[in-house]
C-alpha cells in the first residue's frame, strides 16, 4: 500500500525522456488524479521525440515538430516540470531527491528513466573540440552549426545511429566518411549480404567508407583536424561524430545504492530493488537484457504504469525487437536471429535487377529471424509470425513472395496495407495493429495523418510506417472498406487481449461478467455485443458448474436455442446421433411440421433434418413434441458441438475396416452439449476412402486396419483447411480420450470465435501434439476436465424450456395493444 506524505501521494520522475514520460502518460490514462506528479529533466525542454533527431539533422523536421509534450502540456495536466535540472542525489532513507540547483523534492514513488550515455572510445584526442556525440537536441544543433562552415565530417561507427548521422551530415552539405571497425555495416542487424548491399547503395549516394578500420587517435591542437588509424593512415576531419554505442546511465542509481549490473536491475513489474523505486527505459536491465529501441521501452512504460496505479495485473516478459532504417532512403528491415545456426535453415530471395534481398531464418517451420533489403513491405508480417511462433509449413513455398501471394486473400491487386490482417502490426514502436487504426478511423471519422497519430499513436514515433498508415487512411476513410473481425484487443471496450483476459479471470478468480469488466476497467459499463458473449464463454469454461450463464450475454441463437432466420422466424435442427435416424423420429418430425405449419423441411449438410420457418412463440411446443420422440437439441445454433458426420463403415460397407457409425455415435454422446470458442464439427470415416470427409473437420477420425487415425484442425467453409494428422491410436476408448483432451485444450486456450483451424495455425501443431499425444498425464488431466465440465452441460436445453414455465418468458409475446 502507498503511504502518503500529503493529501495525494507524490510520484517523482527523474529523466524527462521517451520512456519516463510515456509512463506518466499511461498513468494519467488510468487514473489522472491518483498522484501529485513532479518531473526532473536535465535537458531544458518539455519532452521530445528523440528518434526524430535524425530527420531533424536531415532537414526534414524542425525541433518544434518533434516535441511530444511542450511545457504547456505539463501545466495543463497539473504536473510540475523542472526542465534543465539534473538530479544529483537520491536519499532513499528520507525519500527525497536533490537537484544540482539545490531543489529538494520528497517522493512516495520514484521513477528512474535516465536513459543512456553515448560511449566515447578512449583514444587520445577524444576530448577535443569538434568531437560530437549524437544523442540530444544540443548535439544536433552543434552538427548543424558545424555543417554551415566546415567541410569534412568523420563518423565513427557504422551502426544504425552512425549511418543516420552520416546521411544527415551529407544532406547538410558535408563530405562524410564512415569509419567502422567491422567489415560489415550494421553487423548486429544485417548479414554480410545485406550489409554489402547497403554499403553499395550508400556509396552510390556519395558516402565514403573506411572499413575495417580501427581509430587510434583524434588529431588536433584544441580543435579536431583529422583522424589517425591503427595502420598509420590519416584522413582530414573538421568534426568527428562518435556513434559507437551507448551505455545505460546508472550513475545516479548506483550512488543511491540501488542494485545495478549493466543497467538498473528491475523485476517483471519494473520495480527496482527498492520497492518504492521503479525504473523504465534504456537505463534498465530486465532478465539480463537491456534495450535501445522505443518499442520495448513503451511496453515497459505500460506495465510500469499498471503497477504504479496499483492495478497490478500486467507483467513485462521481455521484448523481441526489429529494426528499420529511417533516413537513408533505403528500405531495410531486420529482426531476430538473422544469421542462423546449424539447427536452422535459410530461405533467401534475390533480385539483383531490382536490388532486392530477403532472407528468413527458419527452425522447425518457424521464423527465427529476418533480413530484408530493398523491399520491406512484408517485414511486419514476418515479424508478427516470428513473435507468434506461427507454423509456416502451409505456405512455406510462397512465403518469400510476401503476403499478397497467399492466394486466399482475394485482394491481390490492392495495396500492401489492405492485404494485412487486422492483427498485423503497422506501427512497431507503439504496437498498433491495422485493426486498431481502421477502427479509430471509422469510429472517430478521422481524415488526416495527424488525427490518426493522436487517436492511435501509430506513426507518431519513428514514422517509418507513415506510408502504411496513409494507405489505410485512404482506403478506409475514402471507400466502403468494412473491417473484418479478429482484432488484437478483445473488443473496443478494452485494450486487453483475449489471452490477458482469460489469464486474469483465472488468476484473480473473477466469477461474473461485471467483476471482469470492473477489474479490467472496461470503458463501457456493460460492454458490447462482441465482448459479452466472449466473457460469458470464458467464465463458463473457467468455472464449470459454478458460473451462472448470463442469458443476456448470449447471441440470440444461443439464447433461443434455435437459429434466427432473415424474416425473424427460427429453424429447429434436432440431433441425429452420428447421422442415424429411425421411422419413429422421422414420423415425429413429419408430425411436428404438419401440426405447426412449418413451411420448409430440409436435409442439412450435416446429416440431419432442419425445420425452417418456426415462429418463436411455437418453439417450446415444437420441442415438447420432438422430445416426446426422444429427439433433443442439435445445437445447430451454438458455438458448441454441431454434428458428428459418419459413414456406414464396417457394419455394411464392403470396404469398411472399423465400425465408424458406432464410433461417431459414441463421440457425439460424449461431446454433445459442450460450449466451445467457436462451433466444432467431427466426423468418422470407416476407411481411408473417407466418405465422411473427416479431413476437413475440427476433429476427424479415419479408420485403418490397425486402429484409428486422428486428424485435427480441418475446416470447410470460407477458407478450406485440410486437417493435420495428430497421431494413430488402437482402441475406441483411446479415440474418446484423445478427442476429449483435444477439445478441452481448444476450449481452454483458443480465443472466442477462433475455430480450431486458425487456432492450430497460431499455436502450431507441435504444441498440440505435445499436450495431447506426448504428455500422457497431461492428456488424462485434460480429458478429466472435459468430462467434468460435460457433467454440467448435458441437459437438453429444449427439454428444460419445453417443461419449465419460468424459462418460457423468452418465447412469449409480452402483450398485445
Amino acid at each position, binding site marked *: 500500500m502507498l503511504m502518503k506524505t500529503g493529501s495525494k501521494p507524490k510520484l517523482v520522475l527523474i529523466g524527462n525522456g521517451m520512456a519516463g514520460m510515456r509512463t506518466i502518460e499511461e498513468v494519467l490514462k488510468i487514473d489522472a488524479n491518483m498522484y501529485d506528479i513532479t518531473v526532473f529533466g536535465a535537458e531544458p525542454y518539455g519532452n521530445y521525440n528523440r528518434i526524430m533527431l535524425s530527420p531533424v539533422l536531415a532537414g526534414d523536421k524542425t525541433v518544434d515538430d518533434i516535441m511530444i509534450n511542450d511545457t504547456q502540456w505539463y501545466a495543463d495536466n497539473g504536473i510540475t516540470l523542472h526542465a534543465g535540472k539534473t538530479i544529483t542525489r537520491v536519499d532513499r532513507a528520507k525519500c527525497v531527491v536533490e537537484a544540482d540547483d539545490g531543489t529538494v523534492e520528497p517522493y512516495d514513488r520514484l521513477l528512474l528513466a535516465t536513459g543512456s550515455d553515448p560511449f566515447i572510445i578512449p583514444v587520445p584526442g577524444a576530448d577535443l573540440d569538434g568531437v560530437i556525440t549524437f544523442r540530444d537536441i544540443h548535439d544536433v544543433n552543434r552538427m548543424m552549426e558545424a555543417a554551415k562552415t566546415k567541410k569534412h565530417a568523420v563518423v565513427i561507427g557504422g551502426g544504425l545511429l552512425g549511418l543516420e548521422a552520416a546521411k544527415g551530415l551529407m544532406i547538410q552539405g558535408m563530405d562524410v566518411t564512415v569509419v567502422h571497425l567491422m567489415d560489415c555495416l550494421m553487423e548486429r542487424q544485417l548479414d554480410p549480404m545485406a550489409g554489402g548491399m547497403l554499403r553499395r547503395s550508400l556509396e552510390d549516394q556519395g558516402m565514403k567508407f573506411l572499413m575495417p578500420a580501427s581509430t587510434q587517435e583524434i588529431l588536433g591542437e584544441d580543435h579536431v583536424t583529422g583522424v589517425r588509424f591503427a595502420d598509420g593512415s590519416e584522413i582530414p576531419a573538421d568534426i568527428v561524430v562518435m556513434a559507437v554505442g551507448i551505455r545505460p546511465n546508472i550513475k545516479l542509481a548506483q550512488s543511491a545504492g540501488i542494485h545495478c549490473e549493466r543497467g538498473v536491475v528491475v523485476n517483471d513489474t519494473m520495480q527496482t530493488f527498492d520497492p518504492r523505486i521503479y525504473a523504465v527505459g534504456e537505463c534498465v536491465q530486465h532478465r539480463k537484457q537491456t534495450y535501445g529501441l522505443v518499442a520495448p521501452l513503451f511496453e515497459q512504460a505500460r506495465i510500469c504504469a499498471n503497477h504504479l496505479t496499483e492495478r497490478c495485473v500486467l507483467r513485462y516478459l521481455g521484448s523481441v525487437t526489429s529494426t528499420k532504417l529511417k533516413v537513408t532512403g533505403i528500405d531495410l528491415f531486420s529482426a531476430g536471429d538473422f544469421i542462423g545456426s546449424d539447427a536452422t535453415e535459410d530461405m533467401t530471395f534475390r533480385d539483383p535487377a531490382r536490388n532486392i534481398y530477403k532472407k528468413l531464418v527458419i527452425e522447425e517451420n518457424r521464423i527465427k529471424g529476418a533480413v530484408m533489403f530493398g523491399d520491406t513491405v512484408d517485414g511486419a508480417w514476418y515479424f508478427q509470425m516470428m513473435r507468434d511462433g506461427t507454423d509456416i509449413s502451409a505456405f512455406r513455398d510462397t512465403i518469400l513472395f510476401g503476403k499478397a501471394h497467399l492466394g486466399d486473400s482475394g485482394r491481390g491487386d490492392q495495396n500492401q496495407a489492405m492485404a494485412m490482417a487486422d492483427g498485423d502490426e503497422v506501427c512497431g514502436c507503439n504496437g498498433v495493429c491495422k485493426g486498431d487504426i481502421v477502427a479509430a478511423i471509422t469510429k472517430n*471519422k478521422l481524415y488526416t495523418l495527424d488525427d490518426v497519430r493522436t487517436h492511435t499513436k501509430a506513426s507518431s514515433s519513428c514514422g517509418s510506417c507513415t506510408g502504411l498508415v496513409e494507405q489505410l487512411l485512404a482506403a478506409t476513410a475514402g471507400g466502403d472498406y468494412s473491417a473484418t473481425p479478429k482484432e488484437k484487443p478483445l473488443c473496443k471496450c478494452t485494450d486487453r487481449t483475449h489471452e490477458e483476459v482469460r489469464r486474469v479471470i483465472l488468476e484473480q478468480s473473477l466469477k461474473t461478467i461485471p467483476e471482469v469488466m470492473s477489474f479490467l476497467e472496461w470503458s463501457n459499463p456493460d460492454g458490447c455485443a462482441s465482448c459479452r*458473449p466472449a466473457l460469458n464463454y470464458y467464465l463458463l469454461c473457467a468455472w464449470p458448474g459454478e458460473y451462472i450463464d448470463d442469458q443476456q450475454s448470449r447471441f440470440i441463437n444461443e439464447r433461443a436455442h434455435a437459429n434466427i432466420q432473415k424474416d*425473424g422466424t427460427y429453424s429447429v435442427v434436432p440431433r441425429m446421433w452420428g447421422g442415424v435416424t429411425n421411422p419413429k423420429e422421422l414420423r415425429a418430425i413429419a408430425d411436428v411440421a404438419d401440426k405447426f405449419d412449418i413451411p420448409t423441411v430440409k436435409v442439412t449438410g450435416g446429416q440431419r433434418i432442419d425445420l425452417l420457418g418456426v415462429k418463436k412463440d411455437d418453439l417450446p411446443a415444437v420441442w415438447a413434441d420432438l422430445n416426446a420422440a426422444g429427439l433433443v437439441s442439435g445445437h445447430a445454433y451454438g458455438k458448441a458441438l454441431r454434428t458428428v458426420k459418419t459413414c456406414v463403415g464396417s457394419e455394411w460397407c464392403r470396404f469398411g475396416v472399423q465400425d465408424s457409425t458406432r464410433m461417431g455415435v459414441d463421440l457425439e454422446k460424449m461431446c454433445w452439449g459442450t460450449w466451445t470458442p467457436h462451433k466444432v464439427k467431427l466426423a468418422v470415416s470407416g476407411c481411408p476412402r473417407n466418405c465422411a470427409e473427416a479431413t476437413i473437420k475440427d476433429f476427424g477420425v479415419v479408420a485403418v486396419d490397425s486402429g484409428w487415425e486422428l486428424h485435427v484442425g480441418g475446416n470447410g467453409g470460407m477458407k478450406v483447411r485440410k486437417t493435420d494428422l495428430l497421431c494413430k491410436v488402437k482402441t475406441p476408448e483411446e479415440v474418446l480420450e484423445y478427442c476429449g483432451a483435444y477439445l478441452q485444450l481448444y476450449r481452454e486456450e483458443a480465443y472466442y470465435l477462433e475455430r480450431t483451424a486458425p487456432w492450430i495455425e497460431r499455436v502450431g501443431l507441435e504444441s498440440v501434439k505435445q499436450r495431447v499425444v506426448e504428455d500422457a498425464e497431461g492428456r488424462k488431466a485434460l480429458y478429466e476436465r472435459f468430462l467434468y465440465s460435460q457433467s454440467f452441460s448435458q441437459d437438453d436445453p429444449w427439454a428444460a424450456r419445453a417443461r419449465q414455465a419460468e424459462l418460457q*418468458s423468452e418465447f412469449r409475446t*409480452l402483450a*398485445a395493444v
Partner: protein
Amino acid sequence: METWVKICRVADIPRLGARVVKSARGDIAVFRTANDEIFALMDRCPHKAGPLSQGIVHGKRVTCPLHNWVLELADGNALAPDVGCAPTVGAKIDEEDVYLDMPAARTTPVAAE
C-alpha cells in the same frame, strides 16, 4: 395527445434484454437497460428489418441480431457509419409498471442525417 397504455411490470423484462409487444402498427420491442431504464422501438431494424428485440442490449444501445448494426435506444438512430432509424415509441415507468404511448395515429420522427 398522449395515450399511455399499461403493458407489464418492469420485472417482466430482463435487465439488458427486451420483450415484444404486438400492436396494430407492428411489433414493438421494449428494452430494459442495466439501470432499469425502459425504451421502446418499432421492432424493425432500418437495415433489413431484423427483429431488434432479439439483439444484445448494452449501455443505451442494441445490436441487431442479423448483421450487427448498433442502434441508439433513445432515438432509434443507427450508429455511424450506418445510417437509418427505427421509429421510437414513448415509454415510461410508473410505480414499477411499464407504459407505452399508443396514440391511435402518430407520426414517427425520421432521423436527421
